[in-house]
């Protein structure tokens, strides 16, 4: 017989570190909750079975065909109505790929026995945000997570950073593909030909966000000139065009658009070395103590509290610096830190986490995109569509706008009305919250006037809304 303390621990393991309990899951974790979590530190489900960026290559090819078809239809000489109908169909077809990627991920999340692994993937995908604001990035959000994030999320941070930054999804999202060194051979050629006086080519978006969001942070000690210098070192990093068959639709370094010369970034000199110049900057940013401090704080904030305990952040930062950013070591340190297990669930679930945990509680999976996407959009978390390169916010105040809570309640009512008739809500409450359930919540659910009302109360209870 396990004691009350270990029952609480098992419930925390599955709900705070994982994606919510499926029936029986808290019991499985009960024997050794830390071990149950550590066993999930491995790469497998959800990654791409295909090598490198095959999936991305296929999507980029599909995009190229789509654009060619668009031109064909417009030139076909049919009536305006027919043309727009065909264009609509074409667009619907290509957009269905994004919807399929999303529902595939949601089905994995609702069924996986490795909830912690899935949360780890969500954290890093959100840290290195790519948003479906453009058709090209919409087609690549799914492949990006499989190809750049999941294969590296328990490896070295530097490798994860490099894979994320070099992925076509990121290069396109942050406008890197069109950034051209003003002194590069290509820019000089263009100037001579057109005598255009524009200051050719630099786009500093990616460089700025790598510094501000992905690594050292806005207080990391860089200035505007460092951003510009970094942007210069990244010129030439782009996506291969259809004309270069071996790298089409994949990361490629194009020397002709690279700004030649030595770069100085945050006090360090980087010799001219083509692709290696930018890689050298990423290496130093990965090893920068500000990166370690900032990301460990963010991680503790994500898993434990908006104001995370100092000793937890300190332990994580130590582990990061000593292991030079070994993310598996970081995950183990989080799991083995007593401060991460403190009682009281402080974090409000994001809409996605909440929906996924609701399905997990009743051991079901969504089957179509349309089942979950409109709800997520209404709750402020449109699928694959974070509002900015900073990703989805992590504070309760952002998600708990009065309007959003009303909509959560409305969804809980509809969902429960649809599924509750053959369920046992009291048992589900016990299996999904375990020892975390308060006696008031247990009593309120037990006294509900219908199964549907009981289930809705469970899904809206503070213990279920938080983790």
């Amino acid at each position: 017989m396990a004691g009350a303390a270990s029952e609480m621990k098992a419930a925390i393991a599955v709900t705070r570190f994982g994606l919510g309990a499926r029936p029986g899951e808290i019991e499985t974790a009960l024997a050794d909750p830390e071990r149950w979590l550590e066993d999930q530190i491995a790469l497998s489900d959800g990654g791409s079975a295909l090598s490198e960026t095959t999936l991305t290559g296929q999507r980029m090819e599909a995009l190229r065909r789509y654009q060619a078809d668009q031109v064909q239809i417009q030139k076909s000489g049919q009536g305006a109505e027919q043309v727009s109908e065909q264009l609509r169909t074409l667009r619907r077809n290509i957009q269905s790929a994004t919807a399929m990627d999303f529902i595939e991920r949601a089905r994995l999340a609702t069924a996986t026995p490795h909830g912690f692994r899935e949360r780890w993937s969500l954290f890093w995908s959100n840290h290195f945000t790519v948003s479906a604001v453009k058709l090209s990035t919409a087609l690549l959000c799914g492949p990006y997570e499989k190809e750049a994030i999941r294969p590296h999320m328990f490896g070295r941070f530097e490798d994860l950073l490099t894979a994320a930054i070099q992925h076509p999804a990121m290069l396109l999202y942050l406008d890197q593909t069109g950034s051209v060194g003003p002194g590069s051979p290509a820019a000089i050629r263009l100037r001579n030909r057109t005598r255009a006086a524009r200051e050719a080519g630099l786009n500093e978006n990616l460089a700025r966000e790598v510094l501000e969001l992905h690594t050292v942070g806005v207080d990391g000690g860089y200035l505007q000139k460092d951003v510009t210098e970094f942007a210069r070192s990244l010129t030439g990093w782009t996506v291969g065009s259809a004309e270069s068959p071996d790298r089409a639709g994949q990361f490629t370094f194009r020397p002709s658009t690279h700004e030649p010369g030595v770069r100085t970034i945050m006090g360090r000199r980087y010799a001219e070395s083509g692709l290696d110049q930018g890689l050298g900057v990423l290496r130093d940013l990965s090893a920068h103590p500000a990166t370690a401090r900032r990301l460990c704080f963010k991680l503790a904030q994500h898993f434990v509290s908006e104001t995370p305990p100092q000793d937890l952040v300190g332990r994580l930062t130590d582990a990061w610096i000593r292991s030079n950013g070994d993310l598996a070591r970081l995950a183990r340190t989080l799991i083995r830190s007593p401060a991460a297990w403190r009682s009281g669930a402080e974090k409000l679930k994001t809409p996605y986490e909440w929906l996924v945990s609701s399905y997990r509680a009743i051991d079901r999976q969504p089957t179509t995109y349309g089942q979950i996407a409109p709800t997520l959009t209404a709750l402020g978390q449109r699928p694959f569509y974070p509002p900015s390169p900073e990703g989805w916010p992590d504070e309760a105040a952002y998600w708990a706008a009065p309007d959003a809570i009303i909509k959560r309640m409305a969804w809980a009512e509809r969902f429960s009305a649809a599924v509750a008739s053959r369920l046992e809500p009291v048992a589900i409450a016990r299996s999904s919250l375990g020892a975390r359930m308060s006696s008031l919540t247990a009593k309120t659910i037990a006294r509900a006037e219908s199964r549907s009302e009981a289930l809705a109360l469970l899904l809206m209870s503070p213990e279920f809304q938080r983790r």
Partner: protein
Amino acid sequence: MSSIEVSRRALLGGMAGMGIAFLGRAEAAGASLAGRKLVIVICRGGMDGLAVSPPLGSPDYAALRGAIAFAPEEVLALDGEFGLHPSLTGFRALVSNGQARILPALASPDRARSHFEAQDVLESGASTAYGAETGWLNRTLQALAPGRVVEALSVGATAPLILRGPAVSGSWSPGGKASVSSRLPGLLMDLYAGDSVLGPALAQGLETELMAASARAAASSSVAMAGTSVGEVRRGTTEATTLGRTVAGFMVQPGGPDLVAVSAEGYDTHANQGRVTGALSVRLAYLDGLIEGLRLGLGRTWSKTVVVCVTEFGRTARVNGTRGTDHGTASTALLAGGALKPGGIIGDWPGLGAAALFEGRDLRPTVDSRSLFKGLLLDHLGIERKLLDRQVFPDSTSAAPLTGLV
């Protein structure tokens, strides 16, 4: 309408004891703002002021802007120096009636060119990033609260920083429908009694739903979405107008909100920002539609209203290599409303000459965003100077209120 009355009674019945705390403003004593309204529209992403109000009279304009420079015949004429973006037709008409003005070189005190820092400073009202946990509109509510009945509302599914804080405000976005007649809200209010986030949020949400139900009777609502084709843009603009009318519908109800914050997204134009058409023109058409909807929906209240559209920073004076612009400093603010005094541009125009540019790349700010906001809060809402300097905008004595706008 009788059905709404029925659900209001059902709600109050279901939440006896809890209801009074958040519906308490009906009991509060004191004068209201005499119908004066303030709407803050936050254009997120860094709106390119030099495209919103192109300074065609500046000798350096065409060279700096290159591929994205407007030709004189493409813009709506404003004065000898400035044109207006062709999407802003409604706004231009308001200028003719003396009900709209531009402020061409506004910036917050932040200079980091980071979206997140700059939005934080713009909305928190602090002098540095992360200098305040709450938003300045929320602190405005607190400053007004002692003697007055004031309500605030944010529009959007998530709560923007500008309205966050201890004073209770509502939030609403199109499409929400809750069945307030069920037992669920009442039972949940009991479960949320100890939850400092979920409790107040649910309580405020339920109240707003009741207001929404009656506002919907005046204007049927739908969600504004980004579109690119001509048809989609027109539909998006119509929906933005409808959104404006619906929000106005809230504002004119008895006890409706006096302070409103609206978030408008999609202004981060690093590549292919376009001119007469293109990404930015679509966003500005929506913005124009929103203002028009507010004017139509507010009716007589428009004469007591000021609408201010601001952004976290402007963009580089020069076009970049991808026919867009990167993060910059000062930008244009748009002011509209029947309460405005007629006049020309607000604040000084620094010009675009090489020496005038901030750090050699951005439009130089001449007006601090806090000065603009403080001027409006002082003249329009009657908040004391000392509260403005210390409480609403902490440590802001140096940013003197920009008075005389209303």
